[in-house]
């Protein structure tokens, strides 16, 4: 544990005394720290979990400020840039340093009559910060048209197509993939969070009732849970998503998808909750509470739930990757989010044909985001699991 203070050294200087006092205080703090504080401390020692946490924070920040960070809007398309590769960012124009800039792409054809993009190096178009572009609403409230970065098109000859900077290239319709990934993350990263919240509530209520009351209720609920978990997830997801009626608003599709995602993950959580309840309800403090006349509901919420909250958080975190993959898979199959709404899965729809990937490999970039998010939540969950039992 903490280093023990050296004994037997009588000639302690004032500085050493101070240091010892500090250490004693630190130890005291450790022994009197709350369980949550201890968990937090242990989590911080898990390096992968910390890195993952930072990555997750970055991804969510990107989603939150997507409209601002993305240089273009969701539907800004350009015929010239259809299937354009990622823009090359240059710094030197004719041997002279001019800061970051791009050259406009021009379409040419190679000897096989395939479309290729060639840079027209006549005129540099500088990349500037805080450029005015297509309007968006920050947090859905504040209207703005200032983007973090973009191309300064002041020198554009009239009648020419606007020059664009596309960090990750463009899709079939010439829409900027970078912008679309950021805006799509608003769906891909929030569905699992909301879904997790819904399954949390369902799991605590249903698992709690099942474990606390036992008997017939328990048997019935256990059968239902067994039934739901017998379904292979993906076919069930597909069937439920296909039941979403066509022509309803994007918001409602979003809500329904979230509910479908959560419907499938709560049974496992409810099982965890139930088994914890079974072991906790025999404890003396529950008996004491019952004798004191505390209501069943209050016993569950106030006395039992805190007892296994940490385990539940671990399971919830580890449930998120499944939901990210689920939403991505559904959208990829065309059963999830529908255009005009975008999620990572929708973006990957263009990757359904080998030829498309072979010719435009940058369209696989959303995979990196899906993989990063899934891995990060997995590592964070692992770290939390180690931290959940801080006295170990």
């Amino acid at each position: 544990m903490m280093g023990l203070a050296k004994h037997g050294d009588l000639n302690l200087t004032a500085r050493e005394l101070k240091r010892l006092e500090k250490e004693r205080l630190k130890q005291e703090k450790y022994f009197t720290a709350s369980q949550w504080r201890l968990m937090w401390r242990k989590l911080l020692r898990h390096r992968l979990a910390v890195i993952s946490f930072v990555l997750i924070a970055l991804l969510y920040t990107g989603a939150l400020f997507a409209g601002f960070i993305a240089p273009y809007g969701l539907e800004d398309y350009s015929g010239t840039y259809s299937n354009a590769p990622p823009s090359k960012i240059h710094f030197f124009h004719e041997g002279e340093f001019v800061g970051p800039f791009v050259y406009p792409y021009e379409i040419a054809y190679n000897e096989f009559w395939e479309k290729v993009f060639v840079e027209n190096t006549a005129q540099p178009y500088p990349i500037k910060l805080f450029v005015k572009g297509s309007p968006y609403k920050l947090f859905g409230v504040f209207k703005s048209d200032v983007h973090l970065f973009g191309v300064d098109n002041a020198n554009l000859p009239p009648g020419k197509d606007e020059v664009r900077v596309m960090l990750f290239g463009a899709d079939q319709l010439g829409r900027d993939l970078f912008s679309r990934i950021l805006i799509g993350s608003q769906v891909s990263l929030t569905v699992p969070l909301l879904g997790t919240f819904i399954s949390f509530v369902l799991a605590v209520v249903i698992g709690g009732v099942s474990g606390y009351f036992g008997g017939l209720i328990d048997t019935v609920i256990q059968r239902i849970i067994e039934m739901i978990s017998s379904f292979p997830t993906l076919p069930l997801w597909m069937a439920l998503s296909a039941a979403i009626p066509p022509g309803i608003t994007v918001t409602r599709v979003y809500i329904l998808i979230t509910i479908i995602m959560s419907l499938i993950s709560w049974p496992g959580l409810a099982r965890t909750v139930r088994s914890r309840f079974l072991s906790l309800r025999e404890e003396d403090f529950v008996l004491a509470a019952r004798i004191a006349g505390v209501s069943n509901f209050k016993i569950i919420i106030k006395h039992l739930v805190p007892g296994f909250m940490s385990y539940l958080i671990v399971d919830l975190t580890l449930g998120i990757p499944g939901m990210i993959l689920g939403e991505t898979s559904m959208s990829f199959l065309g059963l999830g989010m529908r255009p005009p709404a975008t999620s990572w899965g929708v973006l990957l729809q263009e990757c359904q044909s080998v030829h498309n990937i072979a010719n435009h490999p940058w369209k696989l970039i959303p995979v990196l985001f899906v993989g990063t998010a899934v891995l990060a939540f997995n590592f964070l969950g692992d770290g939390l699991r180690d931290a959940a039992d801080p006295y170990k």
Partner: protein
Amino acid sequence: MDNLGYIIKRLGLAAVTLILISFAVFFIIQLPPGDFVDTMVANMIRQGEVVTQEDIINLKSMYGLDRPFVVQYFGWFKGILTGNWGTSYYYNQSVLVKIKETLGTTLMISFVTLVFTYIIAVPIAIYSAKHQYSIGDYIVTFIGFVGLAVPHFLLAILLMYVSFRLTGKPLMGLFPEGGITDWPSFLEFLKRLIIPVIVISTSGACGLIRRVRAQLLDEQGKPYVLCLRAKGVTERAITFKYAMRQVLNPIVSGLGGMISGIFNGSTITAIVLMLPTQGPILLKALQTQDVYLSGGILLISASLVVIGNLISDILLAVLDPRIKLLEEIK
């Protein structure tokens, strides 16, 4: 209570689960707004026929669609038991015939994948646990994590892309043209089997490796292992004769989940790679609101998972008598 009693009890529970599943399946396939007659009427109107409100009501009563939900369910359930699974509107074929067409391939792929998963995962897990914190262990753990993180369909696309780059033509489908008739065509079939099997088994294998490795590591620290070592029992005997017995439990109990995972994987992989299994048919059925067909496929896949769970329960009871005892105490 003997083994037979335990097995009968398990069988009873599985039957109850199956009935519940059939009810849920019927509920799900009734969820989409509108029914088969609405689609039919829309088609008739498109073809220029005049359909009155009365005709619609007549049609609905003809197909029994005006009856209450529970009555319809029992009609459907009776059909399931007697071998009449309804008609697929899209393929204009009996649902059972359509399912049988692909069931063989689906089961074959699932079985090959299952065997492949175990063959790959168990030795790797044992190696990884015996050489904890070695370079090999780190590589395995890392691949295990990545394998869990990458969705099936992306792995399928990536491998397809790689094979396209290597061979110059995409390896799609499963059976070579003209079917398997001779040795070269069989080899071609095996070649096409590689990608789907790798893709589908990846996440299951990664999960299994993690579970078995963790369990084996747990066992290694237990006093009986120390005792064995002190007695001079060889490391090999400790692992395979003693520790592995404990590890059998997670291997066997994961069977149901593994089958479920294989269905997840094979559904979407088959859609991407255009394999002749139930995946693409399920997607088509869902897109065209071919409810009886999608219901049938859902029912089949869930039933197979239930059967997998049943097998693993029985195997566990045979392998590990303590489990049955625990149940009796409860």
